[in-house]
């Protein structure tokens, strides 16, 4: 090899160091052909050998429909599974505690409360956030879970029932009760709907139209609405009838929205999560939702 180099034509010798250059020239700067240390060469060969070993023991070569498996049997998926199992073992004792403790006890145990809230945060983001929002802030038609207005009750046990069985979900223990489509089904006429809508707005001291007949509206309300919303409009949690006297409106407080509700009815669905989520996760969700706004005592 040395002899071959000797016979090359373009050999330039750097005058300062007396070392041969590679012949490369960058704006007058010449690259010296200083030899690399020999161990560097051996390290390079070693990496090649290492790569061959790697091909053998790890999945490497793509085949037509699959890839070589590798003698270690290692796989990204199995690695993740192993990691998850490790995590499961790590969380095991706390998860068992969560499974066996009644939700009322979880709230009183600071350590368990922390754990439940951490588990609940993830489960909420995975399962509940699409409707209720990332922080349970709700959206039009989807209740805000941070406020103090609970359609089906805000005590721990009541939240637990709603999470487990849902509302209008088809579960045999779910919450039942719809806002009927008074207009569409011909129960109320347009003038009755308009009058009762004005009356409902007056319940929470919202301004009503100048020509509103509140007395007529009150009569229509008494005849049709008190069963679910109560004689004073304060709602009925047995049937999920919202309190109409407070400042919180699930769909909106403007008259058009109320008229639309009277015309076509309302009946949002909350799925039943029992059976879909594990026992400790359901409890964690209950505690997490409860801790948004402190629930009801």
């Amino acid at each position, binding site marked *: 090899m*040395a002899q071959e180099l000797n016979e090359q034509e373009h050999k330039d010798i750097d*005058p300062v160091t*007396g070392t041969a250059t590679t012949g490369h020239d960058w704006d007058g700067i010449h690259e010296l*052909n200083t*030899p690399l240390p020999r161990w560097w060469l051996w390290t390079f060969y070693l990496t090649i050998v290492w790569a061959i070993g790697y091909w053998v023991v790890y999945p490497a070569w793509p085949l037509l429909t699959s890839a070589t498996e590798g003698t270690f049997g290692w796989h990204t998926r199995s690695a993740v599974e192993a990691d998850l199992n490790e995590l499961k073992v790590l969380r095991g004792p706390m998860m068992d505690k969560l499974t066996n403790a009644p939700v009322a006890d979880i709230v009183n145990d600071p350590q368990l409360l922390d754990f439940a809230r951490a588990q609940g945060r993830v489960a909420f983001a995975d399962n509940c956030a699409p409707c209720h929002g990332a*922080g349970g*802030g709700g959206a039009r038609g989807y209740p805000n879970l941070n*406020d103090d207005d609970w359609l089906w009750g805000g005590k721990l046990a009541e939240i637990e029932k709603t999470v487990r069985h849902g509302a209008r979900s088809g579960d045999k223990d779910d919450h039942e009760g719809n806002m009927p489509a008074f207009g569409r089904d011909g129960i109320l006429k347009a003038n009755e709907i308009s009058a009762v809508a004005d009356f409902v707005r007056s319940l929470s001291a919202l301004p009503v139209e100048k020509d509103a007949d509140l007395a007529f509206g009150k009569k229509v309300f008494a005849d049709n609405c008190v069963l679910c919303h109560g004689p004073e409009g304060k709602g009925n949690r047995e049937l999920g009838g919202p309190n109409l006297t407070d400042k919180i409106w699930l769909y909106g407080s403007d008259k058009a929205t109320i008229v639309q509700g009277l015309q076509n009815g309302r009946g949002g669905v909350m799925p039943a999560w029992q059976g879909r989520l594990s026992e400790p996760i359901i409890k964690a969700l209950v505690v997490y939702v409860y801790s948004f*706004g*402190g629930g009801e005592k």
Partner: protein
Amino acid sequence: MQAVRTLSLDQAAPTAPDLARLVAAAELGHPPPDDNVPLYAPRRKIYPQSVQGTFRKIKWAVLLVTLAIYYLLPFVRWDRGPNAPHQAVLIDFPNSRFYFFFIEIWPQEVYYLTGLLILASIVLFLMNAVAGRVWCGYLCPQTVWTDLFFAIERLVEGDRREHMHRDQRKWTLETYARKGVKHFLWLMVAWWTGGAWVLYFADAPTLVKHLATLQAPFVAYVWIGILTFTTYTLAGHMREQVCLYMCPWPRIQAALTDEYALNVTYRYDRGEPRGSVTKAAELRAQGKPAGDCVNCKQCVHVCPTGVDIRQGADLGCIQCGLCIDACDAMMSKIGRATGLIAFDTDINIKRRMEGQQPFVKLVRVRTVLYAAVIAIAGGIMIFTLATRDSEGISSIHDRNPMSVRLSDGAVRNGYTIRIVNKQLRKRDFILAFNGLPASLIDFVGVPPREDGQLLIDVGPDQTREVRVLVTDYGDTPPASTRIVFRLTDVATGVQAEAYDHFFGP
């Protein structure tokens, strides 16, 4: 496979064009170019000779102290009471704590590590500005362990001459036996090095017991293996190659140094022209110049990186000063003044040649600046460590929803409050709130005390997260109001505060 690159002239007679190039190189004062440059240079094995002297003594002392610290520090105990480990220096990954005697660092205080790294680098720069690469020569782990491995090698295979002789003649059973013993001892030292490393990450006495009874975690054995391998390879086999090819510091150092930094320097004003003692005597008798260097090459033979210091400043020189010891010993033997090689500057050499007094200039812009940065950074670190709070509070406002309208029209904001207790005992805190006149504060899951105050206990060396709800009953809550959460230690009255905002709907 390839010819060893050599600088000597005693080769085959050069051909005509080669001769021209040789002449050209000679005119520039350089050794002749060697055409047989191989692509890869084989390593020149270095057999450093043992040496005695001042710098060797310093090197032994530094080696003993640094290795003693490294190997024994994990076993030093430090009583922290019942709620913390009793190891003086411990990096506790599972509990994310770092213990250093009376200091305990939490993960969020990693800026202390940043400060330490800044200090370390500036101290390195200052050392360099004063006395060149003394870090490389005395303190660098590569130097310390390589020195230890050299010592073992000399013990088993003999000093330079004996070792070279044995390597070059036909290897006998004894050669193999000696090499085997050497590698075994090297591996033992390397293994002990890896073993000491893992002890910094767990309770040392327990881990030693577990390691011996094969009960230690697998990762401990893996790290011992890794450290054994790197120590054995880097200190036993790579040695000066690490300094020459791998380490970035020589390159950075060359850019950082100046002409006043003391470096191991061959005083050519005194040494040149070289010659034997007799020849020098003859020349001097004739009134001709004769140097003190007798060309004994002791300086080259003792050099752990194979440098000939007489050729001037060198990338390979780690400034260990062993050549100074070797030269001083030789000069003493032949009755000449010592200090032909010494920590000195080129400026002084030139001054002496011109008959001026040499000088050492320690106070320079860079040394003053480095010292100032060290003082400031060190001062800040000591100050923050000394005045470090052992309690803390932080607040995160809910992002969704920013504010909640309640059924009676009041407005509520949710906050996640984290309370930190860095003391090693359980503490009771009262959380109070300021900034909104007509408002209520509520803990989720923590009932208020009888007097209505919110009392929360935080375990030793722990944090506790609580959800806090602030409800405003004012007639017109402003769009955004600055509020403050105040934490008060019930026992001592020490306070910590966190600021946040209250948002209207």
